């Protein structure tokens, strides 16, 4: 591996991305570890290139390459590494994410690492995530990660938030439901579908007078993202007609009773 790592390092130093990519892919299972070995070069462009290759060739070793660069001396490299945390999807990387979290002090990076434990983590990470719910700066990410891992308490908390009287809290819960990717959560969208309060501005800068999506509009989009299909297309966040909202409500009302809270 050392020879391949040296060769890869030379290619990274030379900025030869194509050849480095070919070499990396030829290494098979060793590729990630070789990339990690080669990614600690002196020059920031070479380390940047290593991160690009890590993003294009996901593996546990690629994830370790990314996490190793979170503390890079160069701000651009750190920024790129921080934006690639989402590439760490393999269960093998859960301990690496935990280790990186222990080292990391920057709040946004900590939130991203905690959030990624909801994707790459498993039962072993649940105690840690429960402890992290007591740290205000990462509590939201920890609760969401727990819900993604199927933790019953986090799921109950998410369902309670779907019925929160505050429109923003309710919309946030809908957003988290999309991330959890559990279609059965739609069974608790009833209150949101009956909520006609403005919640999220649809229009961006320079797009004329602000138009808001209501909580009910966001709930229909969340259902579409969870895999439900309607008689009308749902691709964007937009203000829907009463009939369209009613169609979504009818779908939720028809969901099996055993999926409902306190059923």
């Amino acid at each position: 591996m050392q020879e391949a790592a040296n060769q890869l390092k030379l290619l990274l130093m030379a900025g030869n991305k194509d050849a480095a990519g070919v070499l990396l892919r030829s290494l098979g299972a060793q590729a990630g570890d070789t990339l990690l070995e080669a990614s600690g070069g002196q020059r920031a462009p070479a380390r940047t290139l290593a991160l690009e290759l890590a993003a294009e060739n996901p593996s546990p070793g690629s994830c370790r390459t990314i996490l190793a660069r979170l503390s890079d001396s160069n701000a651009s490299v750190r920024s790129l590494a921080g934006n690639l945390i989402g590439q760490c999807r393999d269960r093998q990387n859960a301990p690496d994410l935990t280790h990186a979290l222990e080292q990391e002090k920057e709040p946004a990076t900590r939130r991203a690492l905690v959030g990624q434990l909801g994707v790459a983590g498993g039962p072993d990470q649940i105690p840690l995530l429960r402890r992290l719910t007591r740290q205000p700066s990462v509590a939201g990410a920890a609760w969401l990660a727990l819900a993604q891992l199927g933790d019953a308490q986090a799921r109950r908390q998410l369902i309670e938030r779907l019925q929160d009287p505050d429109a923003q809290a309710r919309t946030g819960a809908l957003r988290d439901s999309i991330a959890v990717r559990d279609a059965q959560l739609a069974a608790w969208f009833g209150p949101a579908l009956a909520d006609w309060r403005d919640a999220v501005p649809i229009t961006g800068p320079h797009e004329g007078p602000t138009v808001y999506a209501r909580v009910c509009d966001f709930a229909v989009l969340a259902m579409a993202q969870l895999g439900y299909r309607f008689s009308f297309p749902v691709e964007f966040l937009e203000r829907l007609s009463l009939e369209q909202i009613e169609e979504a409500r009818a779908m939720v009302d028809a969901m099996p009773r055993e999926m409902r809270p306190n059923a």
Partner: protein
Amino acid sequence: MPDFTALVWGGERIYMVAFSRAKNGDAHMDFPDPDDIGFTDDAHNDEHGPIVNAITGAAGTQVRFHRMEISTSAKLYLVSTNPGLVRISNPADGLLTNARSQNFTFVTGKSGGRAALEVHYNWPDGPVIGRLYVQVNERINIRLRLHLVTTVAGHAHGATFLGGAAANPADRHKAMTRLFNGVNHIWVPFGVFFQSEGRVFDTAWDAAALGTATYPPANNDLHRAGALEPNRSSTRVNVYFVPDFADPSTVAFARSVHRARLIGVAFPVGAPAASQHITNQVFVQTNLPANADALAHELGHYLDLCAIDGAAPWAFHSTADTKIAGNDQKIRDDSVTRRRLLYPLDALGAMAAKTWRNDVGYGNLVVGTMISARQLAQDVSLAETGRARTAAGAAANLYAP
């Protein structure tokens, strides 16, 4: 004749010296526009004075110095509180000339940080009568992928491309890349460098990609095609150049990662998260002249400057004024607001009665490029420098699959 002759009746704040941009006209990275919006800063309680931004390793940043309430015969010295961070290179000994206004130059070191350039009266260690704070920013490259959408629903680019003749793809690629030179002149002092990769990606979007046969397509349809574009990069900001927008007067528009996540839109709808793409991206209309200021403004939106998530007219822009009660009155249009990059119009509205507002140092009826640094609780639109650098440097905030 005394050096200070102003008559002070009761409580009055006196500024004996002031600082401003060292040139007029187009923005230039060596001539940043000092933030003199407020002389207090909630984030730095002990600082009272204007502040200017510079990137690490800047070889010659110029600022204009003005004697406001001090005579031209007074000996004044400029002294850096941290010469390792900010060193005055002209005048090298710090002694200012007797001119009422004059430019001075400083160079910055290799590390980021903050220093003050103090104006000392009569001796280099005499009383301090004014300060300019200098925030030295470490460079963060924001990586761009430029896409030339050669046809949109069968419509090609015109012979005039971004305001110039560019009839073949190579010339168009050059014009696209060149546009960012002007953008970087605005953003570099804040430590933000927009870095294109070595090539431009060509693509074509048909009605199926757009989800509509309507031309020009609505912004949402462009967002759909951009999210689903096969050459889309997950490690860069994707910038798509298309011939026409539904709004023919809009130069460009952008959606940040934060905002794309906020609105929950991702394509393909309902697909597993690992195969979805959100709609964080930038669009430029090529049938309008190249306008680096407007694109820099849109990239400001990409970096979530100014108040976000609110309602018009104060959302997103420097005109926000949440202290005025009526919604339709929540607009500021003073000369400072017009100097800011996030002023909401491409061209200023002419003012017949307040003509001094028509030129804020960048040309007649041209918006400025200042990005605010100070933070004041009473103005949610300020502290843009910090917000931009947070957006550029924070995890999971700049690029997305």
